């Protein structure tokens, strides 16, 4: 976050020195886009916040645990697709899950779907890409994530 701030300020200053008018135009353009997407962003993070309230660590443990078999992969993919967690929360959580017996390949499916698919962020994605493209991308990514998990499971089985 900090490095991003420094980078932004530095680039704005350099740009400003080089061309004042162009810089203001660029900043205005960018912020205008931000304001336009803001209501949708807000409503999406509200829904995510509420959904996350129901997805507790115990809930995850129950559905992803080692007794769950193939079902664990499906649950991992489903939960990962719906939730949206920032990395600084997702990875510590994944660490806890591994320690409590969830297999690495299930975690791989969970992490991959978590990052590649955003069912709850579909409204945002659809504003940019249109609904059809958005749905196709998310569906493809879902199967892609399962594939990644399957290959991971196979490699962990071999080594």
């Amino acid at each position, binding site marked *: 976050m900090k490095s*991003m701030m420094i980078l*932004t300020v530095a680039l704005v200053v350099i740009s400003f020195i080089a061309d004042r008018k162009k810089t203001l135009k660029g900043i205005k*353009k960018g912020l205008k886009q931000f304001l336009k997407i803001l209501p949708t962003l807000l*409503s999406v993070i509200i*829904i995510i916040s509420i959904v996350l309230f129901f997805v507790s660590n115990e809930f995850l443990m129950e559905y992803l645990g080692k007794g769950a078999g193939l079902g664990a992969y499906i649950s991992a993919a489903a939960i990962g697709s719906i939730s949206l967690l920032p990395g600084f929360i997702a990875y510590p959580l994944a660490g806890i899950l591994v320690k409590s017996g969830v297999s690495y390949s299930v*975690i*791989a499916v969970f992490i991959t779907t978590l990052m*590649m698919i955003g069912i709850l962020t579909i409204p945002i994605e659809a504003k940019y890409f249109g609904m059809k493209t958005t749905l196709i991308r998310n569906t493809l990514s879902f199967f*892609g994530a399962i594939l990644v998990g399957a290959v991971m499971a196979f490699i962990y089985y071999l080594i």
Partner: protein
Amino acid sequence: MKALFKKYKLDIPVIIAFVIFTGTSFYFQFNPGIQIFKTNFWMFFKEMIILLPMMFILIGLFDVWIPKERIQKHIGDTSGIKGMLLVMLLAFIQAGPLYAAFPVAYLLWKKGCSPVNVFIYISAFTTAKIPMLTFEIGFLGLKFSLLRILITIPVFILIGIIMGKYFERNNCKINEV
């Protein structure tokens, strides 16, 4: 005002309902409501309100400074493997949630980036971000991280190619929002 409501007809009711819900929760000390606001919502809100304006400013600057020809040459239709590597590199050094990738994707596309590379960018963005890698290695180990990334890269390149072809064939476009 009316036009605003119409444009965000799904979003505004959600926002209003949440404001009322949170207000009532705090008033009546309703714990789940307070928790949803304080831990979950606040975390996402902070990320959104600090990170995204900066990102959009950078996008705006990029838009006015970088000529289309240059983008087209490096990551356009004829850029091949080099173009793919470039968009992947661009994605890897960024930070932020998935939705932060979409405005960048729009800008890249507008400047002449090929559809295949746009979708590779989005997938790469979600797979391995250098700022997040330290977290992943710390909590899940280097072996897991390396394996996951090495296996995921060919998968998302494939998805990128399929999506890109679909996008071209159907004359799709990316909106500015």
